[in-house]
């Protein structure tokens, strides 16, 4: 039943479908590659910081970095509801690396005031919505935003990312259904990374593939090699075109793999084999994209190492600065529960402030 999987680069990064090869300006391709390299480095730094006890938590993007392609296919005005492994979209849109590092440290410069686990960030300036932790809740929210865009007659789309596990959630179902019924400009992107923490895809669904679920909702569906940057770009571009034309939403199943653990709290050796991980490491999205970019003379051999060194220096500097900053004070505990603090919270605040350490 499954539709044909879109692949433009093979596992080694050779161009295998010239008809579908998108025309993307070199500056954008370069910036996308830089973002992907940066993501890989953030993973390396993040887990070290967590193991050193300097940050509380780390969420990995390793193996799923091709998602950056969506940022090129979308306009900056388009909304993105991330799951939690899509940091690259915010970074590509200009979310400052400094903000991300301060967020990881949950320090006084953290835009979320030290209230979120590291990695669960959003940025209103970049139309990158603050994510939740309960799985799938953002799918229906993205549909609502798309409906808002539709009734206002905007030329924008609402895009939502979620994992294979989320396809079992209530909000996936209502999100797909409401979006399709209202024919709203929504792009649903399932990062099927094969594992929902320890539960493999075969225990998540009996469907042949996730993209097949689109049929039941009367929705367009596309399946892509999710480690193929170009396929990712083409699918999101097609879905966007369709959505702004008024032809309704698309479900994109991106077949990828979570090479890293679920989070810093997870030990994947308990539930999956090293062989399986190695198999997927051979399909690494950054290596494939790099090979393509070298063939297109966007990059040269050795550029990646230089880039890694540059970002390594920058991250080290930002981490040193972030680590020095204090956390938000006790007086902020009651801020942002409501727009204006009601009296009962004023009273509770006055009580807790007696316990403030000098």
């Amino acid at each position, binding site marked *: 039943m499954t539709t044909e999987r879109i692949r433009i680069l093979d596992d080694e990064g050779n161009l295998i479908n010239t008809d579908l090869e998108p025309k993307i300006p070199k500056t954008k391709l370069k910036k996308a590659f830089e973002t992907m390299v940066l993501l890989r480095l953030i993973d390396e730094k993040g887990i070290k910081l967590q193991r050193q006890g300097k940050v509380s938590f780390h969420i990995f993007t390793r193996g799923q970095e091709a998602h950056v392609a969506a940022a090129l296919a979308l306009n900056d005005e388009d*909304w993105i509801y991330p799951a939690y492994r899509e940091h690259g979209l915010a970074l590509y849109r200009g979310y400052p690396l400094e903000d991300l590092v301060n967020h990881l440290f949950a320090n006084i410069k*953290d*835009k*979320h*005031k030290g*209230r*979120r686990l590291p990695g669960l960030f*959003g*940025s*209103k300036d970049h139309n990158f*919505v*603050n994510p*939740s932790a*309960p799985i799938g*809740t953002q*799918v*229906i*929210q*993205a*549909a*609502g*935003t*798309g*409906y*808002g*865009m*539709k*009734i*206002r007659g905007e030329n924008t789309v*609402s895009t939502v990312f979620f994992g294979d596990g989320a396809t079992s959630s*209530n*909000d996936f*179902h*209502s*999100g797909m*259904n*409401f979006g399709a*019924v*209202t024919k709203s400009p929504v792009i649903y992107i399932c990062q099927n990374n094969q594992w929902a923490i320890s539960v493999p895809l075969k225990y998540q669904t009996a469907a042949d593939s996730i993209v097949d679920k689109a049929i039941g909702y009367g929705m367009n569906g596309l399946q892509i090699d999710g480690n193929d940057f170009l396929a990712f770009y083409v699918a999101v571009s097609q879905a966007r075109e369709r959505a702004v034309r008024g032809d309704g939403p698309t479900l994109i199943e991106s077949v990828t793999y979570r090479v890293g653990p679920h989070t810093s709290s997870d030990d994947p050796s308990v539930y999956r084999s090293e062989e399986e991980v190695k198999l997927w490491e051979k399909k690494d999205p950054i290596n494939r994209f790099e090979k393509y970019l070298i063939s297109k003379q966007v990059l040269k051999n050795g550029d990646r190492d230089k880039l890694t060194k540059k970002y390594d220096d920058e991250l080290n500097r930002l981490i040193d600065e972030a680590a020095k900053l204090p956390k938000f004070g006790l007086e902020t505990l009651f*801020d*942002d*529960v*409501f*727009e*204006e603090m*009601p*009296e*009962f919270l004023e009273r509770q605040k006055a009580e807790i402030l007696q316990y403030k350490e000098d």
Partner: protein
Amino acid sequence: MVDTNIVGAINMALKEEMERDNNVVILGEDIGKDGGVFRATQGLIDKFGRDRVLDTPLSESGIIGFATGLALYGVRAIAEIQFVDFIWPAADQIISEVAKFRYRSGGEYTCPMVIRSPYGGGVKGAHYHSQSPESIFAHTAGLKIVIPSNPFDAKGLLISAIRDSDPVLFLEPKRIYRAFTEEVPEDDYTVPLGKANVVKEGTDLTLVSYGSMLHVTLEAASLAEDEGISCEVIDLRSIVPLDLDTIGMSVMKTGRFISVTEAPKTSGFSAELSALVAENWIEYMEAPILRVTGYDTPFPLTLESFYLPTPKRVLDNIKKSVSF
């Protein structure tokens, strides 16, 4: 002025706010051509069209999640849950999303929206059309909870809720939707959230209630009056934020306190009111702090008249208090 009932006043508020601001959108099950199962949205689809009066698929979590996406985007969404008994699939969206966006994003994203829903018993609706879950939502940070008891307040409070910057759960006492009418201004007016109303002044005892139970409470106060007991009756109008000052002023004067709510007794909002009065004004109290509530059973059908607080049951508690 228009002589109307609560459901009519709600319809007026919705219509006027949708006329005033074309950014206001309502959504829910059967709210279009049908006008809602209680007719609160009657005529709105003809006036404002399907885009702004959206008949949704049958999914409460979907309705609230969709409204959340609209609210985040800047559309002022008013979601109807047909009976509050059906709200639980949406609890995750309400408790963990709608009520938390402002806090979890450090104030970057906000979720101002109104969730309207009929609540309460006394309509022979049995378990799934009769419950009063306000205390469960009062236990979640970031949500305002408003419960009107009359047409004037229903319109004024709903307009306030629609214009509020925070999410509001607006519970409508369906038992008295059409029980009585009163003069309601056609002009724009608001009743502020978080301000209780002293419906009847008195000196011997303070009675606190809201929604349809306010009328049971007033009846009990009137029976007590016949026996020479002067009760002060307070209509809370909203339970979050709670107007504690008005309660305090009253109990310092009367030294006696009874709250009347129809939800189950254990951990009901009456328990919260009792605790607050004890914490703050125990030295003024001349009798035990009492509460008249529903019982800790599922909501019954044939026995609902016993389950729900009655004027007689409230009166007995009043006598118990004054004779202590």
